[in-house]
């Protein structure tokens, strides 16, 4: 049938249309987004994360945290992200330019983590939560990540990184043996460093909130 080459061309064109529009155009439009230089503060935003936090990102990736936690704050008026304290403004593309792998996420089995470093800024909370989420959030369905920790014999002095478990919990789980301590492994430390680094502090010009004009007699 002579129609075949035309149909095949059409099949190609249909996908080429969306590839051009969704992939190519956006790569051209904002695939080389640069950091924003703030005149008043004299520095660039966003921050690049430290080495430890960068390693923590790999841990976040390999454990699949992104399948329960999103990392994107929706604008005011769309959902309740900002009212819940998950961020002060809508997330924009410039927030993510230094991330080798972007974890926007599509599920909120757990809360959004984009600014978790701002609202949970104490490492100890994260260690307890990772070890057993029930310690900090009773009723949570988050999995325990006890395998990120090590229950080991004291080497001389108690490590400053050792977890301070509530005594009844420690007793119930046999974690109160004298001469032993529960410490995070390097992977846990990296992961927590990554979580603490999650904080989109700066309001880029394109992230300014839009306030719709009032309907009756309001000025634009």
């Amino acid at each position, binding site marked *: *049938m002579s*129609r*075949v080459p035309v149909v095949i061309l*059409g*099949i190609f064109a*249909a*996908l080429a*249309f*969306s*590839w051009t*529009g*969704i*992939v190519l155009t*956006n*790569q051209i439009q*904002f*695939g*080389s*987004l640069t950091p924003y230089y703030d005149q008043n503060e004299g520095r660039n935003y966003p921050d690049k994360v430290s080495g430890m936090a960068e390693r923590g990102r790999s841990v*976040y*990736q*390999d*454990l*699949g945290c*992104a*399948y*329960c936690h*999103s990392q*994107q704050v*929706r*604008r005011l008026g*769309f*959902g*309740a992200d900002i*009212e*819940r304290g998950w961020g002060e403004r*809508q*997330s*924009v*593309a410039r*927030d*993510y*330019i230094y*991330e080798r*792998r*972007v974890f*926007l996420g*599509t*599920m*909120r*089995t757990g809360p959004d983590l984009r600014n978790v470093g701002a609202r949970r800024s104490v490492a100890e909370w994260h260690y307890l939560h990772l070890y057993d*989420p029930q310690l900090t959030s009773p*009723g*949570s*369905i988050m*999995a*325990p*990540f*006890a*395998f990120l920790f090590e229950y080991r014999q004291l080497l001389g002095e108690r490590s400053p990184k050792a977890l301070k478990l509530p005594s009844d919990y420690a007793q119930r789980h046999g974690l109160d043996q004298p001469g032993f301590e529960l410490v995070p492994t390097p992977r846990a430390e990296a992961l927590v460093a990554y979580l603490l680094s999650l904080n989109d502090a700066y309001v880029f010009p394109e992230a300014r909130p839009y306030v719709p004009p009032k309907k009756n007699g309001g000025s634009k």
Partner: protein
Amino acid sequence: MASAFNLGTSLDPATRPDAVWRAELNEIDASTKWPVVVFLLSAVAWLLVGTVFALISSIKLHAPEFLGDYEWFTFGRARSAHLNAAVYGWSTNAAFGVVFWLMARLSRAKLRHPGILVIAACFWNLGVAIGVGGILKGDSTSIEWLEMPPYATPLLFVTYAIIGSWAAITFRFREEKHIYVSQWYLLAALLWFPWIYAVAQIMLIYEPARGTVQALVNWWFAHNIIGLWFTPIGLGAIYYFIPKVLGKPIYGYFLAMLGFWTLAIFNSWAGIHHLIGGPVPAWVVSASIVASLMMVIPVVVTAINFHMTMVGNFAALRYSPTLRFVVFGAVNYTLVSLTGSAMAIRSVNEITHFTHFTVGHAHQGMYAFFTMVMFGAIYYVMPRILRKEWPSAMLIRAHFWSAAIGVTLYWVDLEIGGWIQGLQMNNPDIPFIEVVRNTVPYLFVGSVAGIVMTIGHFAFAVNIAWMFCTRSEDSAAAPTLFHSRPAMPGASAQ
């Protein structure tokens, strides 16, 4: 606009000698036998693997301490292992098997050098196995629908090149002049898959794009896997099996090509509805919403074609396992697509995004539509290439009812639970931990639904294994139907 004639009565043995085309068809079926058998058996094996990881993940959602000590089974990994085993293991292997059988049949062309395809099938399975193992081990890319680590995927790509080109070659050397709509759908899927897969691999893994351009590529890719790979194959199968089993032509067939082109153009633009409200330009989100709503057009076309063909013939569902599974799939295709269009509306999305509603919707699409159609296809194809009949109608019945009830319970339950979850999440006065606790009963019912589906999978696997162990001479003289059917006029067709 009733059909002009009934194919059953229009069979005119005088047009071609019965024995000639029967012999030819036997040859075509025989040429496809080994590749199709290997693909379909691999598919069933991966179905079982995917089911195990599905149950593990589902249970962990309401009982997080389940297998909690094992890093390899942590939810993030188990869930991704399930998805990849189900998508690239079960669904894609089944798709390959059905594509080859259908393409050879409809093109009236023998599959050449089928041994090469058997080798390709083995390498495909090796690639998926390495990929799923890699996810469990901790090398997941955390890119949705593309979690397999980079050391597994080149193998898949090379294998696909062989598989895809073989099917295209079969089409190229067709003996049958007329091209039926199913062939267009299958050919299109075969051409689209490598393109979307390659773009995703390059722009997300080998040369990652900067920032949220990654998200756009990710969801262009992931939605197109569903919309431009699995959907056309499922639709192509439905377009074949309904008229084939009924002996009736498709009602409104002249709309079919309109449906094909509108699917191609609109579905490929719809992917960014997964990012509504996200850190991507508003224009591309709005374009995707528009495309998702325009999808109503091809969905209405296929709804007319499938459902109106069935009208007046629902009695056939009593007898034919193939028809039951395929029609169940067709009905769910219409439902899930209309749901999807609705979910793309911003005000609906505000509620459903990030909730279990999306998970229910995804399973309605991949299981209640695609998987059920594949089940129906397998029930038709296997006897013809093995030249044996299914040993047990009871197992087929068990399979159908478990799968149908299981998946319907699953998606209805998760969509209700997800809707409530979304409403509560949007109410900042409700503490988040309470929103989570309120989802637990729905997640529990989800696991129950999963167990029901698992029963069906085991019935299926047992029936297949039994069929293999039966010698063809002992096999039933009549096709395995649910109930015995009065003889149809002229129904001596292959």
